[in-house]
């Protein structure tokens, strides 16, 4: 019934989508679209596909698994792994479905390994959020997915108990699992101080920390004053392999936007706003 009633919020949402697409199109981004229903072959599913399946809305038809789009970057990565695209930068809008609910996502992707181009795109996204989505995000959490494998080693990173303790930021559990490794004690420090101590203990991670500093400066230049490093962040999908950023609005515990660097044939950066 409600779909037949004039709904100002619906008009506002469509206008917002058009403004977002136009804003990025005006900065040289190509507008893309992908099907909201995705098809998966049983035998062709990757570990990432299988990991995400329980959160997806799925059904089986004619022996093929069909799923509603879970998030745009995931769809784009799957597309890029199969097809070539010429675009250097892309912008999108549309619904995503997870854990039983429909959400709307606005986002952009930069198909380039240039940090400068990626950071420019992040600046634009924050500029749009400030102008059209109720103001600047109040805080950012920034991580780098190459950090933990370097300080813990690939073997430890493969241990499910260690991964769980890292995702819980559990000082107690990590002390038990990692013994005398300095990481658990670092979790007792303020997040800002953790990076400085990491640098002195593991000088080999300096290039990663410098990269993080570059992104932090971009966030601060965009007006976000509170930027926190997260040294125990784990990627939700294996294609995320670099910087990852979560932006939070005032009084919200769920991120208003998130995304990061990933590899799908080549290096890329993508970020989405959820509203």
């Amino acid at each position, binding site marked *: 019934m409600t779909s037949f009633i004039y709904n100002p919020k619906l008009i506002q949402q469509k206008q917002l989508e058009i403004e977002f697409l136009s804003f990025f199109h005006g900065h040289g981004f190509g507008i893309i679209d992908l099907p909201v229903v995705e098809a998966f072959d049983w035998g062709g599913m990757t570990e990432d596909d299988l990991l995400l399946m329980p959160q997806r809305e799925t059904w089986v038809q004619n022996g093929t698994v069909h799923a509603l789009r879970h998030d745009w970057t995931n769809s784009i990565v799957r597309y890029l792994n199969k097809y070539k695209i010429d675009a250097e930068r892309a912008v999108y809008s549309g619904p995503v479905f997870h854990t039983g609910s429909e959400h709307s996502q606005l986002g952009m992707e930069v198909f380039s390994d240039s940090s400068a181009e990626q950071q420019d795109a992040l600046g634009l996204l924050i500029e749009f959020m400030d102008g059209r989505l109720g103001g600047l995000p109040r*805080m950012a*959490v920034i991580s780098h997915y190459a950090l933990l494998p370097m300080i813990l080693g690939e073997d430890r990173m493969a241990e499910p108990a260690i991964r769980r303790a890292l995702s*819980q*930021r*559990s*000082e*107690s*559990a990590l002390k038990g699992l990692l013994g005398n490794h300095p990481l658990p004690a670092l979790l*007792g*420090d*303020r*997040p800002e101080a953790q990076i400085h101590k990491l640098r002195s203990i593991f000088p080999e991670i300096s290039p990663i920390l410098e990269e993080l500093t570059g992104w932090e400066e971009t966030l601060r230049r965009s007006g976000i004053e*509170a930027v*926190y490093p*997260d040294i125990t962040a784990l990627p939700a999908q294996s294609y995320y392999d670099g910087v990852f950023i979560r932006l*939070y609005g005032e009084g*919200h*515990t769920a991120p208003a936007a998130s995304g990061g660097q990933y590899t799908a044939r080549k290096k890329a950066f993508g970020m989405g706003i959820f509203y």
Partner: protein
Amino acid sequence: MITIALSKGRLLKSFLNYLEQNGHPRWHGALKSAQRELLVETEGIRFLLVKGDDVPTYVEEGIAELGITGSDILAENGTDVNELLELPFGRCHFALASKEELPEYRTIATKYVNYAKSVFDRSEKPVKIIKLNGSVELAAVIGMADAIVDIVQSGETLRMNGLQERVVLDPINARLIANKHAFFTRSAEIRAFINELRVN
């Protein structure tokens, strides 16, 4: 002011004992004197006294920055919070208990369905699990289930109902949990609370 959701009941008693023994007279006094109040404020800390099952929800939703609850509840609920520290109180364990010792236990009554499922999956034994919300012992007494999976502290409740502990399962203790957002934004206050607790 930092807000801490506390589990009422058994765990609260255990927390009060810990506070008394470790030199926190004000926190102890304020919490001890709370009769039916669900909100207690003292020394820049607001304690919310809530049902144990609800502690992770208050923390996940950001109503409380921190929470103290049992690892049994965290094992069962899988809430999206940071499980920062094991705390040195609230110790007990999960156990499988029955009226008679049987070669196999095929029907299990429990409040902890997810945990029980993981236990029997680990031992590769198929069982039927019946969810109960309380008085779980009764299920084994009247024969609704072959055994129960429940928390055991002293074992007194089991003995009073003619049940015996057959398998000692995972240990349980209190855990300090944190909201994932507050972990960053309130880190100084969280660290101050941990230092005050003197658990390290």
